[in-house]
């Protein structure tokens, strides 16, 4: 592997925010194409960060700052990726359900998914079922709807949202994944979701499985 790609990986894993954009520019100047920088640099780095989280070495602060570092690097190559027509891993509409303002999990999932090459439309927090439907109607190519809830009082709004998506005739072409502290696999199945992720790191794997 090129040394500069190793430096990009190392920079993200060790959250070197000050120099990550320089490293990415160096990689481009060395003739490495943007897709290779994404796939063999950034995605590999975020995979390592996710592994460190699962192993109990990294926690939320490290995950967030590593993801922010990756985002900074991504800003440099994103216009080039778009220009060269590189396909994303899939479009994902993401948000926290009605009544729930807890967004740290949702934000982290969003960053991890972007880091894995997905195109993420973040609808925000306290999103009504109607708003999710509206965004999905505007993004008919979305492959996944990802819903987050932290509270036991708001988690029923996941089912309300899924039901609204069904009524709007959008459910059949869409996979739904859910996450949040009070949920589990059984609950996810009962409300009609296709996937459940217990944390941001594993959300990437679930999304990849759902888009096949």
């Amino acid at each position, binding site marked *: 592997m090129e040394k500069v790609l190793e430096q990009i990986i190392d920079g993200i894993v060790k959250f070197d925010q000050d120099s990550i954009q320089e490293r990415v520019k160096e990689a481009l100047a060395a003739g490495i194409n943007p897709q290779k920088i994404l796939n063999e640099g950034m995605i590999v780095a975020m995979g390592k960060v996710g592994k460190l989280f699962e192993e109990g070495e990294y926690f*939320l*602060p490290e995950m967030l700052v590593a993801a*922010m570092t990756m985002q900074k690097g991504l800003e440099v190559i994103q216009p080039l990726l778009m220009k060269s027509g590189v396909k994303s891993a899939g479009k994902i509409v993401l948000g926290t359900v009605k009544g729930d303002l807890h967004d740290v999990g949702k934000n982290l999932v969003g960053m991890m998914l972007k880091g894995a090459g997905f195109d993420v439309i973040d609808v925000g927090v306290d999103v009504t079922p109607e708003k999710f439907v509206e965004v999905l109607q505007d993004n008919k190519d979305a492959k996944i709807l990802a819903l987050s809830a932290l509270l036991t009082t708001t988690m029923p709004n996941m089912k309300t949202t899924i039901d609204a998506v069904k009524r709007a005739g959008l459910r059949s072409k869409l996979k739904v994944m859910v996450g949040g502290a009070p949920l589990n696999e059984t609950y996810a199945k009962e409300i009609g979701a296709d996937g459940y992720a217990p944390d941001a790191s594993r959300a990437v794997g679930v999304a990849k499985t759902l888009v096949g």
Partner: protein
Amino acid sequence: MNCRERVLNRLAGKPVDKIPNLNIIMTFAAKYVGVPYKKYITDYRSLVEGNIACCEAFGIDMVSTISDPYRELYGFGGNIIFPEDDVPMCTDFLVKDYSDLKKLSVKDPLKSERMLDRIRAVELFKSRLSKSYPIQGFIEGAFAEAVDLRGMNGLMRDLIEQPAPVHEMLEICTEQVIRFAEEQIKAGADFIGVGDAAASLIGPRHYQAFALPYEKRICDAIHKGGVRVKLHVCGNITSILNFMPLSGADIIDVDWMVDFGKAVNAFAGKCSANGNFDPVSVMLRGTPAEVEQAVTKCVEASNNTTCISAGCEIPKDTSFENMLTLDRTLKN
């Protein structure tokens, strides 16, 4: 043996007629007495009524003023929204950048509407219950209060990117919550609950730097008032189990994701573990048989100071049958 004797005996490792049931009730209690949640958390009489009614009906052994995380934040000037019958929300953060710390000042709890409401709840508990129940006042931990002021996303990044002003903010939070605790102690609290929710998310290194030293100062101040501490940190605290007793807390709540036996062992000889079945899959969605099984499993992992409860708040729509089964299992 009344509830107060039961809890105090248990903490001292002395014999009890039932392992204390220390479940946290908030939305459940409001629903039980038919009070919209906004009223429950803004009118201390409703909170006291709901608590006493639930403790009597479901065998819970401690009344508590726990309600929502925004009593202190309201005092600081936070913009809190109170839905009619739902939990309150904070839509804006007071500390947008650390120059905003200059605008923060520690408030007199007796002159701050929402802190005063909780102090009055303690007084009313005291006048109604005499010494039959232990009375728990409640404060935010400094770290949780810092999250409320700065926002979770911002604070988590700041721990790595700009730790110095985080400590400045934690100093202000510590001073505020200690003053709030002191007033609740004067009002008659036997325990002060300290809610330091987000401390479970930061891992042992940051916990020791940003949460534990402040928890310890808060516990020391509460102990100085002759009162015990029940520390509640929601979420998976497995990575900080060995450090949490250094706070000096007398009871540490253990959320359901943690191996309870491991927590009981880590706390042995230092403080009581309280926990830890899943409030959602067991209490809200489980059958009575599943409740019995989950409670029994926790009892089997206990030592002679352990108390029992769900890992976090009993969800609002939990069935009465499950609540009764929980306490019946403890009695048996």
